[in-house]
């Protein structure tokens, strides 16, 4: 899956990251019981046991979503990638949890240079990154149980937040045009810029850090946010199974 020389070029860095993202999404679906646990089979990735969904449509959807993320990543305009979990229709369809991947620290490369090797690559990057991915997976699987319980029949999606315009660097990231497939981030989730303060809901009610991965040029952070809506939902709905987490 990953290129034979991971992290030496921007393209290979993105490809490594998207592989990781795919595995992470499958793991999140398993841990948060979005789909029944029996629909997952055990696989190994990065020398670590992970869970992968067996349903072909789910896999297809995830692959499509991740390719869309990859396309955006290649243009170096992505700030964050989030896997958002929504409450079921019956409980208001509000976002309950967000699994954030902050990729703003990925290198910014001009369009033509995606396959140019980076200047310095520290030795043994392949092993290092694997170990970090393993640690992230392991952390993710544990975090799943420390988060508050989710109601049954939640849905999920993958969202991308783009970077703000950086006119001084000559980058206009905001995809404004007609027709506009992108939506602006709701004000309560926008980050501070100049006089504007952080959105009120940024960071959610509770943030659980997962891991900061740093291997060569691949630097990103991952954390989990639980939203206000989750508190409300928890009081309204009953947990689906009797287990108290």
């Amino acid at each position: 899956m990953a290129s034979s020389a991971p992290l030496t070029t921007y393209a290979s860095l993105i490809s490594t990251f998207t592989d990781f993202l795919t595995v992470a999404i499958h793991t999140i679906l398993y841990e948060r019981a979005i789909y029944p646990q029996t629909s997952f089979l055990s696989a190994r990735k990065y020398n670590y046991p992970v869970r992968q969904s067996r349903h072909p449509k789910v896999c297809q959807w995830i692959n499509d979503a991740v390719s869309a993320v990859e396309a955006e990543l290649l243009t170096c305009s992505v700030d964050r990638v989030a896997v958002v979990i929504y409450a079921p229709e019956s409980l208001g369809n509000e976002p309950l949890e967000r699994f954030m991947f902050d990729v703003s620290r990925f290198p910014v490369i001009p369009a033509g240079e995606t396959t140019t090797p980076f200047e310095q690559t520290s030795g043994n990057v392949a092993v290092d990154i694997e170990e970090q991915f393993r640690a992230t997976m392991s952390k993710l699987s544990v975090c799943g149980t420390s988060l508050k319980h989710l109601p049954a029949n939640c849905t999920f999606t993958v969202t991308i937040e783009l970077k703000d315009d950086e006119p001084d660097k000559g980058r206009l990231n905001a995809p404004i045009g007609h027709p506009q497939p992108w939506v602006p981030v709701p004000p309560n989730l926008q980050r501070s810029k100049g006089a504007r303060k952080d959105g009120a809901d940024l960071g959610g009610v509770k943030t659980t850090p997962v891991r900061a991965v740093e291997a060569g040029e691949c630097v990103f952070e991952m954390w989990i946010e639980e939203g206000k809506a989750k508190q409300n939902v928890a009081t309204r709905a009953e947990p689906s199974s009797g287990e108290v987490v």
Partner: protein
Amino acid sequence: MADKYNEYLAVNVLNEDRVVGFPSHSPLAEFRCANDRGVVQVSYRSLSRALKVHSNLAKHMLYDFHHKQTAKKPGSVHATYLIAGTCRPETSIQANEVNGHDAEDSVMQSSPPFRSSSMPQQEESVEEDVAVKLLLLAKEEDLEEAKARFDEITSVHIYSLEPTSLKDLQVLSDCNREIRSKYSSEDPLEAWKQYGTIQNPNVKACNLLILFTIYTDSIIEKIKSQATASSRTTTLAKDEKTSNTKPGDDTKPSRRASGSHTPQAEEAATPSSKKTTVKAPTLKRDKSDIFKSFAKSKAKLITEDSAGSAGASSAPESGEPSAAEDEPMKDVSEDEQEDDFVLVNSKDTEVANRRSKAEKAEREERLRKMMEEEDEPMNDAPSVAGMDDSQEQLLTQKTESQQSAEQEPEATTTVSGGRRRGRRRVMKKKTVKDEEGYLVTKEEPVWESFSEEEPVAKKVKMPTAAATTAKGKKGGGGGKPGQGNIMSFFSKK
């Protein structure tokens, strides 16, 4: 030293709310951690290796820590228990049905590998009650339920500790991977006393090279015996298999190229018996490949074998092995597989007796010459060595015959049920790192089996120049010296 465990466990298990180095500008700046490995669960084995204590002591340590922490703050540490005992088949089946939580109890296969899930089949075939030994990994909340499954419990102990309940018990396997990677340098014959691993008192330290020799020779012997019993074509097909088991190995193509296998038994046998030159490096390369096959699954070996039998042929006697021959070969190889993995040393004795003494004497001499080149002391295992000699001779012979024959294999296709199957040669690129750290990319022909929809069966023959095969072989030999190849197998794991 014993008190260190509290510290170790506190750092590794309780550290869950501190996460590795978020940089200062990040919103999560306040979270920093000394635990860079991100260890989440600690098993008794990893604890014993880390603190250099006996495994049983490590189990006590885990229990003690768990006890203390839950007394201080309930739910701060979660334990996974390992329960061993016997159970009745009916109880286990019922328990499986009643137990609604699928992923929680998993049956370990390390010791008596009776899976309770396989009991239903046994029940049907076996009429009497068979007591089943069961090893069960259970989370602490399911402990009582798991205990109820057993008729008689021989032992219960804590297997691992983690900060919260694990949804997927499989992550515990990561502890073993960690042990393998960190502590593989320790000599098991000394470490076993310290760690309390189960040890066979009759085991002797054996040099790897000799180990390979014994194994490969036993295979060769088996091949020979079965060849004499059934047909000689089988012999050479097995040769192909044993020396060419790992697909994509860059030394393999050369051997496959020179592989000799024909439908005509007599012609096939004669070339092999003619070759006698001894080449130590070649031998080592073969052994390393064979060792790789040793670790590979049976299925793979069987497919390789059937593929090999379908594909190889000698240049002078070119003929297409018929589909019918594939079956007998497959059967024989399957039988052989079972035997090999279970009994290696016992077969040596059996098979060696069948050899003619004249051949043996001849080969022993040659082998002695070769063995003198190597460093290991043969003194402690004279009987084994005697057999080794003769068997190594055979191995060298076969390899030599293959190489010096320089025969092109024939890519064969068989048609069955509207699909074209068989083996063909494909150019594949292989990038290897040689001992100086240089990446060497070689494009080499490799056998692969294929299965295609094809109305017309075509005989695909891909002649390869002898020069290129020789070059490929030498390149492979130079790029991967034998000893380094063997050790790299270990270090990868």
